[in-house]
């Protein structure tokens, strides 16, 4: 039973690698934020699998916290950091007119 779970965990971690690439690549701030959200989802999945693997029930609590707090970062981005997104939009408009 454990090799299947472990294999799934490694696969999910590779997905987190894709999210990290997208965070690095961008191109807009919204892309980076969505990639961070993907990373949260993947981490939650890995934590749940690990909790089944190593018999640590507290890991489900850690996953619960990540799932609960993911929304706070998203809400922050759209209400307080959107000014950067507008700068992205303007920079790309200018790049297109060149």
């Amino acid at each position: 039973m454990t090799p299947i779970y472990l294999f799934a965990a490694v696969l999910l971690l590779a997905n987190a690698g894709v999210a990290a690439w997208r965070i690095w690549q961008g191109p807009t701030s919204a892309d980076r934020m969505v990639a961070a959200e993907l990373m949260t989802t993947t981490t939650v999945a890995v934590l749940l699998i690990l909790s089944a693997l190593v018999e640590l029930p507290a890991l489900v609590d850690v996953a619960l916290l990540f799932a609960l707090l993911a929304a706070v970062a998203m809400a922050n981005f759209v209400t307080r950091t959107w000014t950067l997104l507008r700068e992205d939009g303007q920079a790309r408009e200018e790049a297109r007119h060149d």
Partner: protein
Amino acid sequence: MTEWLEVVSHLLVVAGALFFVTGSLGFIRFPDVFTRLHALTKADNLGLGLLCSGLALQADGLAEAAKIMLIWLLVLLASGIGATLVASTAAACGIRPWQNRTGASREAQQEPQE
């Protein structure tokens, strides 16, 4: 009975991981933020749902299983509502959706890059 449960739970976990892989493929291939939101909110949340139900079948008790399903519900909420928030803010900030029409395609081709 327990053996069957175990097989079903393993199948669900593997299926969930495969949905995650398709979501990541979308993250690599899709051209702009609006399309990438689909990869996040559809493929990955379905993957997490399958994975959570697989693990909930193996959980120690009903409370533990309910907690695992609650996590899935929370992620659904966060990414569902978060996706609409990000998409409407991006649209309002002047990020244009990608269009693959012949007239617009040359401009749009440059969009995936910086």
